[in-house]
């Protein structure tokens, strides 16, 4: 099966600053992928490279096996909801549906109209007069009704209130269930993604820190606490993500495919937020981890 997104050594440079560095990824199709990282980490850059809005400085990226935005068929197979969910403010909701219908051969008109109805949007309303949540919903409707195989959303709910967030995610989840749809969704908040994502990419300081299925990430990351000890004394199979030491005690977040069998250490699991924070902290501390790939 073709990977949803396949990147090799992908990098993007703006002037002297690298917005994305040496990104090598293979995201299998059929996942809801959470792309998480602090602001400015390169999430938007990665999504823009994947939608063909940007061209890379180094490396290559293939989306559904093809160069992004290379031809109408490739464009048709990818749905994209950009940051701030742009819509034409002077065009009505109805006009947007016509826009979708005229611009996409695979447009599902029934689906689009049903969603607009469910969302209780007035078709005659100008998009400029919609609330942020309604606008996001309209943009999502446009992206879903073109019947893509992959849907990419760039911080779609960052600017929405909690209720609108929940509604948005609900619509998104229904769509992924109904259509065979892969989703890549970025956010700087893990909590936004926790409930929906089954695959996670952590992007910090323009580098991918880790990527993998959520279940395997959770299964292979552990929080170890025990009497103070040197990091080097941990077995070689355990990769230390973060460590902290007090006079008497040491704690580590490690990644290990093997069970932890050291009786002097108490082993606890991590939730997704802890895991992401560990990687963010580790990247901040400047320890240069090689790109880690999750188990496939």
């Amino acid at each position, binding site marked *: 099966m073709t990977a949803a997104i396949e990147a090799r050594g992908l990098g993007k440079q703006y002037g002297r600053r690298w917005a994305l560095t040496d990104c090598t990824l293979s995201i299998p199709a059929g996942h809801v992928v959470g792309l998480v990282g602090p602001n400015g980490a390169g999430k938007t850059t990665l999504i*823009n490279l994947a939608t063909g*809005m940007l061209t890379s400085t180094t490396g290559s990226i293939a989306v559904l096996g093809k160069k992004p935005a290379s031809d109408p*068929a490739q464009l048709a197979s990818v749905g994209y909801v950009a940051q*701030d969910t742009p819509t*034409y403010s002077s065009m009505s909701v109805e006009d947007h549906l016509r826009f979708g219908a005229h*611009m996409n051969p695979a447009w599902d008109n029934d689906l689009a109209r049903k969603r607009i109805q469910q969302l209780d949007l007035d078709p005659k309303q100008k998009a400029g007069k919609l609330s942020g949540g309604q606008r996001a919903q309209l943009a999502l409707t*446009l992206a879903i009704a073109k019947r893509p195989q992959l849907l990419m959303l760039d911080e779609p709910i960052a600017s929405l209130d909690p209720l609108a967030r929940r509604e948005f995610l609900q619509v998104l989840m229904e769509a992924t269930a109904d259509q065979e749809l892969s989703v890549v969704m970025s956010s700087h908040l893990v909590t936004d993604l926790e409930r929906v994502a089954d695959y996670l990419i952590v992007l910090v300081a323009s580098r991918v820190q880790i990527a993998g299925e959520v279940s395997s990430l959770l299964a292979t990351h552990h929080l170890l606490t025990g009497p103070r000890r040197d990091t080097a004394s941990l077995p070689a199979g355990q990769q230390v993500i973060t460590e902290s030491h007090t006079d008497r005690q040491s704690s580590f977040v490690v990644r290990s495919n093997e069970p932890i069998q050291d009786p002097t250490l108490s082993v606890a699991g991590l939730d997704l937020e802890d895991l992401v924070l560990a990687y963010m902290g580790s990247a901040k501390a400047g320890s240069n981890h090689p790109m880690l790939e999750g188990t496939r």
Partner: protein
Amino acid sequence: MIWLSWRQFRLQAVVAAAALAVVAIALLSTGAHLSALFDSNGLATCRTTCSTDAVNFNNQLKGSTTELIFYGSTFLMYAVPGLIGIFWGAPLVARELESGTFRLAWNQSVTKSRWIAVKLGLIGLAAMATIGLLSLMTSWWASPLYDAAQKGGGNSFSINKIAPPLFGATGIAPVGYAAFAFALGVAAGVLIRRTIPAMAVTLVIFAAVQVVMPLLIQPHLISPARLTAPFNANTANEIMISSPGNTMTVVGNFSGPAAWVLSDETITPSGKVFTGPAGSACLSSTAPPQQCNNWLNSQHLRQLITYQPASRYWPMQWLELAIYLVVAAGLSVLCVWQVRRRRG
């Protein structure tokens, strides 16, 4: 894509159609009066010596609304391409870039190249059609004026279609101006990425081109015709002596057929521009002026005139159109190329 182009262009199209309708009504309602005046002065039937009729016709028009409409429509022919560049061209891509909607537009199942190409093509054609229609209407309306000028004989009238400003306000050249202004506006928007500055840049460049072109390039589109005639001081337009040095500037009177006179020099038998020095007959304060004229006439001076004859009106119009269309096409290619590599 055609639907989207139309939907986003609808408002501008309606404004343009309404403006054209207003102009059409103004021209239609006054056109009949103008041709009636043309007929009543006997210009319709006169065959040979029509200059008196033409002068009468002209005098009747001096200070009238008709004259105002004539100048107004000439001005419009220059203004409309500029307005098209500013209000149709500049916002076309700039507004999408500015409001972020390009992220929506460029992720439908239509490539960026096609998106920009269709928009450029359709609205560019609309621009050319608009100015073409306006040119037809104003030419029809002003045809009695041109006919009278022609029958009245040559340069005695200020209405001369071969020379600026009328050359660029008539015929098919304005179609080229509109295409150029539109493509210029789009290109400015693509490169500057902001609507208002793009509009300003479009205005400045288009205005500059419209000044530079007739001043520097238009006269040489076709190599100018030359004509020499004996200089006659008795009918000279200007004889000027400046001291010290007693240099003379003399300008002869040229009464050829209707033409765009590019230069009119008085030259010596050796082919140099005559600059004096003035003979004593011209310097004496007591001698009658005729003595100076006689002296000048004895110098074997000739008038050298370079000009574009009126018969070259259509070849020059086609050339002008072709040049502007080529530049517009170049700018369009630049737009497509820039949009293709445009980053978000």
